[in-house]
């Protein structure tokens, strides 16, 4: 079985986000980059499938050379090979087209993406890849069972859950639940050593773009908190009604 795991290279969840002085882009100075948390659940799920029934796992990232350490980390965790599509990922539809081109040139049974990346929060690429390739797609996927050439998947929907079946290949937009937090792996020394010699191919990207970021800004700072004494809870109710008009 051939599994493609798409990963994004994103600022660590604890990173303080700043933008360049002209507001045109993220200021990466002092920011540590990691595998997008949603994708990490997908990568671990792929490893579980590999260990249960055998599989070759390819990890793919659309990004510049600076994202290769993130791909190497995925290799150290257990992926077999990596592909970097050489482009700055600024527009979801262009990223999705590049991934589609790679999938068409290779035979994958299962394509796992995180449901979104924690930088641009688009939640666009996985559905677009599925639409371009006319493949079944499950978003917000919190459970996946592969049985031969078919799959059953559990998804979060508004206010509940749904269960679906389909034949492979399929595209998954995954999140926590695909595997649990405790199942996530950190690379061990042997993994880090072998990752150095695993193949990392660089492919060319699809050009163009339908959208463009005009500028970035930080949200306005909150004014100081109004503290209400713990024995005057009625005052909080008054403020919520009369001042903030929340109730």
């Amino acid at each position, binding site marked *: 079985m051939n599994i493609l795991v798409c990963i994004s290279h994103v600022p660590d969840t604890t990173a303080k986000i700043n933008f360049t002085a002209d507001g045109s882009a*993220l200021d990466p100075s002092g920011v540590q980059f990691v595998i997008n948390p949603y994708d990490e659940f997908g990568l671990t799920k792929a490893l579980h499938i590999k260990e249960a029934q055998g599989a070759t796992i390819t990890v793919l990232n659309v990004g510049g050379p600076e994202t290769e350490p993130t791909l190497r980390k995925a290799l150290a965790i257990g992926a077999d090979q990596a592909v970097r599509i050489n482009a700055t990922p600024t527009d979801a539809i262009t990223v999705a087209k590049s991934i589609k081109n790679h999938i068409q040139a290779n035979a994958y049974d299962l394509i796992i993406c995180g449901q979104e990346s924690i930088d641009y929060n688009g939640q666009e690429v996985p559905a677009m890849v599925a639409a371009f390739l006319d493949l079944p797609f499950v*978003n917000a996927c919190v459970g996946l069972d592969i049985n031969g050439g078919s799959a059953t998947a559990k998804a979060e929907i508004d206010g509940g859950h749904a269960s679906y079946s389909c034949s492979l290949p399929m595209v998954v937009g995954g999140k926590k639940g695909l595997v649990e937090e405790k199942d996530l792996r950190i690379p061990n020394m042997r993994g880090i050593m072998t990752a150095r010699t695993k193949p990392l191919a660089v492919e060319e990207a699809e050009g163009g773009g339908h959208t463009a970021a005009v500028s970035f800004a930080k949200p306005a700072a909150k004014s100081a908190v109004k503290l209400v004494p713990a024995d005057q809870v009625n005052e909080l109710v008054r403020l919520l009604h009369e001042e903030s008009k929340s109730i």
Partner: protein
Amino acid sequence: MIVVFVESWNNQFKKASFEAVSYARSWANTAGCGVRAITSASAENASQLAQYGADEIATLELAQTGAGIGAQLAGLVGDAQGVVVAGTAMGKIIAPTLAALTSGALSTNTTGTPKSTSPVVVERGAFSSKGIETISLNSGLPIISFVPNAIGIKEEAGAGVMTSVEASGADKLTTNDVSVASGKVALPEAEIVVSAGRGLKGPENWGMIEELADVLGAATACSKPVSDIGWRPHSEHVGQTGIQVNPNLYIAVGISGAIQHLAGVSASKTIVAINTDPEAPFFKAADYGIVGDAFEVVPQLIEELRAFKAAN
């Protein structure tokens, strides 16, 4: 024409459904065109969309999954100047599917109506609410998926001409089972959210959180550590890697306010933090705070709110 997809569930509209029509009306007013609503609700029920600005209301038999509906819509937007979809769980699949199939220009997680219409420029949340991106939809059909509760519902009469249409496009998934909790407010579209964290000391203490949510008609939520240790389901986890919410009121009980949690809630209009620790980071992100023991403050708050509800 601005086309708006209006989601219905068992012939019932959600709040975000009406908001989607209001969004489309606002965009159409700026662009100087009409609004066509597309929905699977019955014609009788769908006719009320005229109150929010729909000039044409087209009803049709829809596919069951977001990808199937996206494929159907792709065949129905040939003459559209723009498309609006609410960013519900379903809408988050429909919008990118439609964008791929029509080679459109998509903004998801959109937080406001267009600032200009040629090209369409909107603001959207990025970096898990730590940033605001202004994005320009330059080439192809502009498609906007907005965050529910971002702009609110506004009544404005539209012509409301009813039609019925057909569309091709099929589901690629077999739906085995759908379970939706009845009588509970769904978290992503809740106007008020009551959330609790490790300060509650154990899952057995969530009774008062649910009671507080009941009094307010709120959804319940929790912090990441609480869902990781299994006190509450993952579906309640609010934060950077969980659900991101933007209610009118977010009440955080016994949550310290780690940067990852704040990223998921900072779009809330008003935030109340209740915590024993006066140094808890949540107090820097909150509008109102009470430094005190949740086990004393929350029961009092329930009592005060009951009295308030009875008097108002």
